[in-house]
Each structure stands twice: as structure tokens, then as C-alpha cells.
């Protein structure tokens, strides 16, 4: 019964590899670029260009930081609006130079604080949702740990979403859900179960296309697996003309939702 909450804990485990480790191991020659060109550089989001089997890729990741000092510097992977704006700037650049975009998602959510509200957190996320929907280049989002609500979705309006075996994706954290709905933080496990937030749930609900098997002992097994599949994804998507790609992306999201009519 409480399997879902175990997965949540795994997705947040302190020793879990963070975005930069994936970027450095799956891609070659990663060059990081900084700043949103308006306000600041947000260390919670890393981005830049890299190559994959000789193909130029724009890579963007939400970085939680490895080690306490880094975690604090990177705000535990809770981005500010300037992080989302940097991501969008790099995506627009990718579109201009016909580079595919790969996003690595790992966040408990967009940062809830005074600064982010003053600088338009809601607008920053909304802009990414709109612009990614029509970005004229393939987009792939890979969830490696936590996928917390709008702050994760802002890097996941993609042609495909892949989940690591123990990653999660949810509209709200199980803690938030339990406290708001039941005013009882002890019901976190029930909330985790009810929200349907595991990688397996995402596959069933068609929110994700693929589950990536994890290998705790040997990271290179996972990175080789990812590399192989990303190359295949790119081959497949680059065969499509842009209009078809965008129409498929629109329909992918258009299809979400079930309701009664009449």
C-alpha cells in the first residue's frame, strides 16, 4: 500500500545523482552558459550546449547540487523566475540554430519566496509553457528525481517525457496534499498513494513514454542506456517535418483529461 511513498523517498534520496552528473556523462563537451539577460543567473538551473554523437544539443537541467554547500548555493534545486527565463532563452537559441533540446528535471518545485513572486514566478512558468508548445525543434524531458508541479512542467512541455524508475511527478507534494486536504501531516503516505505520482503511474496515465531502468552500482550503465535512447529519439523526431512535430506535441497535451459530457 505505501509503495508510492517509498518511491517518493527514493526520488529525493541525498545520494541520488543530480542533473550535472547526467549532463557530463551522457553528453560530450558540455559548455555551460549563464544568465537570463534581464536580472541574474539562477544556479538552480544549468544550461548550455553539448554534443551527442557529433550532434549539437541544447541541454538544460535543474540542479539540486551535490554536497551541502552546493545544495545551498543551488537553492536545493528550487528555481527562481530568472532560471526559467534562462532556460527559455537557451531554448529559443536552440530553435534558431536547429538544435534539439534535452531537459533534465529534478525539483521539489519552483521556489516559493518573496523574490520569485516579485519577479513574476507565475508569468515565467506560463511563458515557458506557451513558448515550448511551439518551439520549432524536438524537445525531450527526462525526470531523474523529483518532478514538482509547475516548476517541473516549465521544462517538460516536450515531445516525449521519460522517467527514471524511481522518479516521481506530481501536481503537489504528498506533504502539501496531506496538510491542505486532511490537515494531517501523518497522512502523507495516503496522499502519495492517491496522487498517482510514480514513474509507473506516469506511463499508465500516458504522461510519460518511457521508464529508464536505474543502476545504483554502475552509473555508466545508465548513461550508456540513456545515450542510446536519446540518439534514437532524435533520429525519429528529426525525420518529422516541423509542422508535424508541433502538431503532435499540441495533440499530446490536448488529449489529457477525462470527464463526462451530457
Amino acid at each position, binding site marked *: 500500500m505505501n509503495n508510492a511513498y517509498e518511491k517518493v523517498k527514493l526520488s529525493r534520496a541525498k545520494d541520488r545523482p543530480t542533473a550535472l552528473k547526467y549532463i557530463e556523462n551522457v553528453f560530450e563537451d558540455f559548455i555551460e552558459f549563464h544568465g537570463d539577460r534581464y536580472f541574474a543567473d539562477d544556479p538552480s538551473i544549468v544550461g548550455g550546449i553539448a554534443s551527442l554523437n557529433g550532434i549539437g544539443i541544447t541541454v538544460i537541467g535543474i540542479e539540486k547540487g551535490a554536497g551541502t554547500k552546493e545544495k545551498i548555493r543551488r537553492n536545493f534545486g528550487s528555481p527562481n523566475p530568472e532560471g526559467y527565463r534562462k532556460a527559455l532563452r537557451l531554448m529559443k537559441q536552440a530553435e534558431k540554430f536547429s538544435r534539439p533540446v534535452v531537459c533534465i528535471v529534478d525539483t521539489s518545485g519552483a*521556489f516559493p519566496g518573496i523574490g520569485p513572486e516579485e519577479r513574476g514566478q507565475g*508569468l515565467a512558468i506560463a511563458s515557458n509553457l506557451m513558448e515550448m508548445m511551439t518551439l520549432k525543434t524536438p524537445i525531450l524531458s527526462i525526470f531523474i528525481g523529483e518532478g514538482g508541479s509547475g516548476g517541473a512542467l516549465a521544462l517538460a*512541455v516536450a515531445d516525449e517525457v521519460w522517467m527514471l524508475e524511481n522518479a516521481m511527478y*506530481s501536481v*503537489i507534494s504528498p506533504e502539501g496534499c496531506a496538510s491542505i486536504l486532511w490537515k494531517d501531516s501523518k497522512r502523507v503516505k495516503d496522499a502519495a498513494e492517491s496522487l498517482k*505520482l510514480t514513474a509507473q503511474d506516469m506511463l499508465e496515465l500516458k504522461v510519460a513514454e518511457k521508464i529508464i531502468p536505474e543502476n545504483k552500482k554502475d552509473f555508466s550503465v545508465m548513461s550508456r542506456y540513456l545515450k542510446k535512447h536519446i540518439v534514437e529519439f532524435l533520429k525519429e523526431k528529426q525525420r518529422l517535418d516541423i509542422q508535424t512535430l508541433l502538431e503532435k506535441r499540441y495533440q499530446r497535451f*490536448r488529449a489529457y483529461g477525462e470527464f463526462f459530457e451530457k
Partner: protein
Amino acid sequence: MLKKGLFRNPKNELEGSGKRRKSVSDKKKAEGMKAQFVCPVCKENMAWNEFAENYFVCDCGYHYKMGARQRIDFIADTGTFRELYADLTSKDILSFPEYAEKLKRAQATSGEKEAVICATAKIAGIDCAVFTMEGDFMMGSMGSVVGEKITRLFEYADQNKLPVVGFTVSGGARMQEGIISLMQMAKTSGAVKKHGDNGGFYLCVLTNPTTGGVTASFAMEADIILAEPGALIGFAGPRVIEQTIRRKLPPGFQTAEFLLEKGFVDRIAPRSEQRELVGKILSLHEKRR
């Protein structure tokens, strides 16, 4: 309580200026004695019927909540309202605890089937696609039905070359539909983008409160964003922020006026001015043939 067409045809300029009218019939007075509105800000009493005639705005400027149907009545030209997608109702897709009962209760208390009303209507004589949200329906939260109705409305407006006028009030995405609620943010954003890319005009009025997944999607995606005075508008809710940063928020934080100062809304629009203002903006966006 509120008669249809109550807001039609102001008889004089003063009526539209937010001033309280003095002449109230004896019958109405009697009704008013039964139901008094006590303003939470200035603590003044006001008879309900008088309050309703004043667009539910207190003399001190406090804007009280307004139902989705009252909104449509308020903004649309008399007799031009045609509701769309009224048959859509929510499904308990994840078998989420207590969701089915909550939906029933929300329908009973709000008198609406879901948290948004979509329609075509004329505003100041101009054909529009209109949506108004219902705060009394599970805090105006967005699940599959809200997402679907908003998306259909923008697609309809795109096909029929109509401007969209919307009024938001929402606590955000609806937890009880889990990740599918989150997906509605992307779905609606896609439809707003398509409408806009094809030249469609979208005006949104943010009302109290507009937060979470609605702020981070179609509320903030309008070409022109108006906000009602004093409305709470933000991504994260104030309580969540206080818990995270472990201190009190400054007064006025996340109000419409705060967003205006920070540059995130175009104008503050008091209710008494909305009809005229929205009408003028719409007429300036009419396509020349």
C-alpha cells in the same frame, strides 16, 4: 438573490462610479434589513440589495467575491449570452479519496456544474468568447473540465476569429485529479498560444484570488492583463511562502497593486469601470476589414 440584468443600463454617470445609490424602495429596504453585508475591511454595514447594486463593492473600495454567472451578467450585453460546453462534468479519474462527494457538494453550494463558465456574448456590442470562473466551486480549481472548457473556448475563438475576455479566480490546479490537473496548464497554454499566434486578442481580468497553476498558465498569458483592486495574485500562496521562509510577509504583498508596481499587470480595474474599460479596449482591437 441577484436578478438577471441587474447591471444593465446605468441611468446616470454616478451609478457607474462606485457611489452608493440613495433611493431604495421600501420593499428592498425591508429585504435589506434581513441581510446585511458587513465589510471585512472597514466593518461598515450595507444592505445586501444595495451592495449588489453596487457590484458587490463596499464604499471603502473592498471588492467582494462575485459568482461566475453574476460576472457574465455583469460584463455581457443583455440577452447576448450563449453558454458553451455546459454539459461537461468532472470524473473521479484517480478514485481520489472524498473527491466524488466534494464534487457533489461543490455543485450544491455553487449551483454550477464546474468551476468555469464559457460562453459567447457581446461586450459593448462586440462579439467575444468569454469565460468566468466560480470561486465557490472547489476554490475555482482547475481539473480536466476547467482545462478542457478553457481549451475549447480558445480553439473556438481561434476558428471564429473572436477575442477572448476572461475573469480568473482560482486556488490553482485541482489536487484530486493529480498529474492530469497539472497537464491542463500545458493544454490551456497551447490553445492560448495558437489563438494568439493567429492574431487573436485575449484580455484577462485577475480577481481575488488568482494563484497557483492558473496564474502560471492562462491567467498570465493574456495580451492585456487587468486586476481588481486588492485581489490576491501570485504563484505560491502566502501561507506556503511564510512556512518556507519562516517569516511574515510584508503588508500588501501579492496584491493587485503590488503586481502593478512590479510590472506584471497592465492596469487596476475597479468593477465600476470594468464594462466601459473592457469595451473600449475591445473596440480598439477590432480588426479592420
